[in-house]
């Protein structure tokens, strides 16, 4: 089993997100990047599949901000067998279409049986990378996956719908899956292990393919959402807030 996990770094939402002077996008110089949390689940799911069914995991990503090495070493420490970074002269805000095209070009040469990636990322304005990879690679795709097992050339996935309903879907390998949650929470990679790996492991490099058509979408303006239906804010300390809540509930006959 040849498993490939596509990883993407996105602006960290732990911090306030600063806008550029024109208000047309984030100020990428002022944000920290972290691995998309759904990609962490994709990686975990990949390692779980490998542990159960054998095979090798290749972790792959576009080195947008020249900080992918740590992500890849961590992936290796968690159980990936091989790491590849796509290098080139990038914009930190490269859209999903562009990244998907670069990723697909490298993944195609790896002849994978299974390609996993996060179901979405908080910044994919022009759509999710997973289905785009499937389209480039001519593979079937299923997303919003919360568990995946492989047997006899078929991936059996749990796909989530609204209302907590889950469908069992079978997909012929090779295929692409968008992971929402791995069957287990992502494991911890001790830093000493990561550092050990950083000293010895090789990260392969691949040149980004010539840029294809971009998303065709012009981002005109980005802003913190206007507080249209802004809540009525209850002032005072905790006790006063509690008293006001009780008033509201009483007024509406809810107590």
């Amino acid at each position: 089993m040849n498993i490939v996990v596509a990883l993407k770094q996105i602006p960290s939402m732990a911090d306030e997100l600063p806008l550029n002077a024109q208000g047309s996008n984030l100020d990428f110089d002022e944000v920290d990047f972290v691995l998309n949390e759904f990609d962490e689940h994709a990686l975990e799911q990949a390692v779980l599949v490998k542990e159960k069914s054998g095979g090798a995991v290749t972790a792959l990503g576009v080195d947008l901000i020249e900080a992918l090495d740590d992500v890849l070493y961590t992936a290796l420490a968690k159980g990936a067998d091989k790491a590849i970074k796509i290098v080139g002269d990038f914009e930190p805000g490269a859209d999903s279409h562009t990244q998907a095209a670069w990723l697909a070009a490298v993944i195609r040469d790896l002849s994978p049986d299974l390609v996993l990636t996060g179901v979405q990322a908080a910044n994919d304005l022009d759509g999710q990378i997973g289905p785009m990879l499937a389209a480039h690679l001519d593979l079937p795709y299923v997303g919003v996956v919360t568990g995946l097992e492989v047997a006899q050339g078929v991936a059996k996935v749990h796909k989530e719908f609204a209302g907590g309903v889950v469908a069992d879907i079978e997909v012929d390998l090779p295929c692409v899956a968008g992971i929402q949650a791995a069957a287990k929470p992502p494991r911890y990679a001790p830093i000493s292990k990561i550092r050990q790996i950083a000293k010895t492991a090789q990260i392969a490099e691949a040149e980004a393919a010539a840029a294809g058509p971009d998303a065709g979408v012009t981002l005109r303006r980005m802003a913190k959402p206007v507080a249209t239906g802004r809540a009525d804010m209850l002032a005072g300390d905790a006790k006063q807030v509690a008293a006001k809540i009780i008033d509201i509930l009483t007024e509406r006959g809810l107590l």
Partner: protein
Amino acid sequence: MSNDILVIAEHLDGRIADISFEMVGKARELAAALGGQVIVLALGSGLQAQAGGFASHTTLYLDDPLLAHYNPQAYQQVIAALAAAHSPRLIMLGYTSIGMDVAAWLSVKTGRPCIAYVNDIAVEQDAIVTRSQLYGGKMSAESATRADSLIVTLMAGAFAADAGRGATPIQPIAAPVPLAGLRTRFTGLLKPEAGDVDITTQEKLVAVGRGVGGEDGVALATELAEALGAVVAASRPVTDAGWLPKTRQVGKSGLTVRPKLYLMLGISGAPEHLEGMKDAELIIAINSDENAPIFNVAHYGATQDLFEVAEALLEAL
């Protein structure tokens, strides 16, 4: 290219989902501005009656036993074929488990641009202008595209469903591509396990988020819920962590609730959570972060430590 709008209806467990009507309602408005028609595409099995309930100009209905449940590849291929046949100006899908599979795939396959997380959309001269929620709702992005055909995924609940209800007779169609030999197969549906309380039928919910910090926080919220005659619900991080069973999860991948009271403790208001509770009659949010997006949705809010407020409420009740 036409100026028509192709709306992809969806259904789950034999029922056409509200998002389908919400899209049609908005599509009517846009079609008027574009001078085109609203074409609904529904793929199902035995859904003729429900599929006849759209306020569309045309409703194309493909009936096949294989389409009784969602099948990723069937949807992708049928939609791609109809997009080719109708050359719509705009293709609308839900930002749902189905739309998230299809939209970006279709975009790459057919060379149409795609915009996700859309919660507003309008026609502006020769451009289609959208507003999307990015970064978990922390940013709102306005985009424009002049392409002659565009794909969007719309957030559930962004538009009124009633505007999309009507009585357009269905127009049955034959499968434009063979449905045999697909590489994806539906094999079964699992409903959330019964046994625990059903939060969808409760009048009052106390919902806890990651802000409760752990099982102790949940225990406190449970005590508060009991005092209020309510039941505890949760955001996903709480059920993921196992602090509460999965059956208590509200939101996109959880349950949709419409209680009379939804009291939120330490939930930030991510769009996936809002999706499951925005229709609650009274939403009160306690969150220590004054910038938490939930305050854009709640009716009442307080920038407070949830533990302190919960304890004060318990004392006062």
